[in-house]
């Protein structure tokens, strides 16, 4: 009743090929963007912004990058934390070593360095698949962990191994307050989400999906596996590297290599699995789920007066995560995004049953 396409005729190819062909979808997205850009900065408390929205935005960006690699191209990667670290430290180095470097340039440079490293560690994907590739990317994770700790030039000679950035600004506009940081991260996410969506809708995206579904058949019909896999690694690492830079600069402000360790890689992989492999929206759902759930569980004692010991709450978070991952993989392997699209399908028929 509400979600019908009746009367919406397309007269140009362009309007037929748009991302949101249905008017109701376009209205919903417009409302969402207004809510994100205007309403939330106005009404959200600084705590909500710094503890929930900003990590959500940055991790959604990283999950987006990982989804392109794992969900669209089918290359399992356990080294996402490493690529975030590379992006963060490369951005830090450019920002600190060259005075007056614009922050956006530093972040994009972090993405580029992460691309190079990502392609390097993506080369094994040309020979190995699945679990073996996961191990190769795990090697990337540990190698970068080691490099950030042992190679002095990575941290600009910091004796403690901890680096920090200060005085962030974009063309003179400071990025210091929670609202400014939130909007900065949101703009990055919006731009990259649009780019990613268009990439996966285009030829390269179809090549990735072909490689994911049946790589031998894809090679037979003329899709070059080298090109497809390495571009997947490249694009994914770029986005993840920029996300890493944002995580270090905007969210943490001061970080050590442990901020991008194996736990971060697992967290992003869980986001992508629970959110929905092979779906742009799935990255957002997964990130929202994984960022918000621990905070809710930790905050339960205060908000509802239920006395949970902090250690128990922490253990509970792990248990619930594990249980949910298993649940989703059994019940809905395609994640929350599939639940969402199923709901939309049902909404198209509502109130009729079929």
């Amino acid at each position: 009743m509400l979600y019908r396409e009746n009367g919406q005729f397309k007269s140009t190819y362009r309007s037929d090929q748009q991302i949101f062909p249905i008017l109701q979808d376009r209205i919903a997205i417009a409302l969402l963007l207004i809510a994100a850009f205007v309403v939330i900065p106005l009404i959200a408390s600084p705590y909500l912004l710094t503890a929930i929205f900003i990590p959500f935005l940055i991790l959604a960006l990283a999950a987006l990058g990982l989804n392109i690699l794992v969900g669209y191209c089918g290359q399992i990667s356990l080294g996402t934390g490493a690529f975030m670290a590379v992006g963060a430290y490369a951005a830090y180095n450019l920002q600190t070593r060259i005075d007056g470097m614009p922050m956006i340039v530093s972040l994009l440079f972090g993405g580029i360095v992460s691309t190079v490293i990502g392609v390097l560690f993506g080369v094994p994907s040309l020979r190995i698949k699945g679990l073996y590739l996961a191990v190769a990317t795990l090697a990337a994770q540990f190698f970068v962990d080691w490099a950030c700790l042992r190679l002095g030039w990575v941290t600009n000679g910091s004796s403690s191994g901890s680096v920090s950035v200060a005085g962030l600004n974009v063309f003179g506009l400071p990025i210091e307050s929670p609202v400014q940081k939130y909007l900065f991260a949101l703009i990055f996410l919006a731009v990259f989400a649009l780019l990613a969506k268009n990439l996966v809708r285009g030829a390269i995206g179809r090549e990735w999906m072909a490689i994911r579904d049946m790589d031998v058949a894809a090679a037979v019909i003329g899709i070059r596996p080298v090109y497809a896999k390495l571009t997947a690694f490249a694009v994914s690492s770029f986005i993840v590297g920029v996300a890493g830079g944002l995580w270090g600069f905007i969210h943490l402000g001061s970080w050590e290599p442990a901020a991008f360790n194996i736990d971060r890689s697992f967290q992003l992989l869980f986001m992508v699995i629970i959110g929905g492999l092979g779906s742009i929206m799935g990255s957002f759902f997964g990130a929202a789920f994984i960022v918000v759930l621990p905070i809710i569980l930790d905050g339960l004692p205060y908000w509802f007066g239920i006395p949970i010991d902090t250690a128990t709450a922490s253990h509970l978070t792990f248990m619930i995560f594990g249980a949910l991952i298993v649940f989703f993989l059994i019940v809905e392997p395609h994640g929350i995004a599939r639940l969402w699209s199923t709901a939309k399908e049902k909404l198209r028929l509502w109130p009729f049953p079929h």
Partner: protein
Amino acid sequence: MKHLMKSLALGATLLATATGAFAQAKEQFFPLLAYRTGAYAPNGTPWANGKQDYLKMINARDGGINGVKITFEECETGYATDKGVECYERLKTRPGVTLFEPQATGITFALTDKVPTDKIPLLTVGYGLAASQDGGVFKWNFPLMGSYWTAADMLIQQIGKKEGGLDKLKGKKIALVYHDSPFGKEPIPLLEERAKMHGFELTKIPVTAPGVEQKSAWLQVRQAKPDYVLLWGWGIMNATALKEAQATGYPREKMYGVWWAGAEPDVKDVGEGAKGYNALNLNTSGQTPKVIQDILKYVHDKGQGTGPKDEVGTVLYTRGVIIQMLGVEAVRRAQERFGKGKVMTGEQVRWGLENLALDQKKLDSLGFSGVMRPLSTSCQDHMGSTWARVHTWDGSKWSFTSDWLQADEQIIKPMVKAAADKYATEKKLTRRTPADCQS
């Protein structure tokens, strides 16, 4: 419809009570960042229990600080920087928030950037940024009772004493087995400085966090054959290090740990295997001090104890008690200036921390006689006291085997000032003016 209205009403009342709780600032709120899970939990838990028990005791015995009741809430950080930052952001907006004590050097680094804007002091007793001793640059950081530079300095002094003089260190080999994190790397600048001064060779052997896997590190120790090993570990890294030392046959008598590597959780499991291991200690342990007796009487005997009773009085538990006492005394000192019986703001507590004067008489009246040395802070000196002792494990208990050592300020002060100046230039801060010191 009725069901819907009922649940709406319930939701509204819950919301109202929740928001109602936010409005008052009648109590002094202590956020307690702690870690009871993860690789560092064995050491973090007694520390956190000590902190909580002391607050409970002050409420039960004294009715608060000059009548102002104390409330607290624990937040689990798991020794992770991002969780620590999230806990900080969540708890800093509570009314009556006093100070933050993150229990972790990594979290300290992250919060050091945030506290000047939020105007809440950061208490880092015996850990954190060594440069933050300089109150002229680090207005909001308080590394009371010591930092890793004072600790490393005192260990070198003790080793020098053992050798018969600091000049006898020439040509000797000292290995630093350290946790590969900001915590472990912090003493390196001071050790390198001392190595230059006395001519000993410093070998740095990092151990990947969390330190469960140390076989390769101790193989390096075996090959290097150092005369002494300094252990800079935390959590399970310490017990693993001692077990590995036993396995490779390195004499434990030649091992000296920092004050975070010398407590019961580190040696209990190793038992006889750690016999002879030495470590620094900022405080005594045991259940005899009056404050511990009061905690047992007012908290544990009433069934309010946070942890098990036999944990009360252990090294880290006592340190947690001392840390919380310093926080409470800072509030009390702030109340002397800003209004007795009133809830203190973060800025007022900061002044209190900067003007602490805990002489022996005051410590005795608080019940801390013999537990720690007197401490007094000032605008330029945010450390207050640079004393510690070495204690040794004899297989079943710790006993002190050295006199009180004091860190050599001649060496440390210029290094601290240089590091603080470097920090100030990086962050574009200016040193505090004398006028600012009076506020």
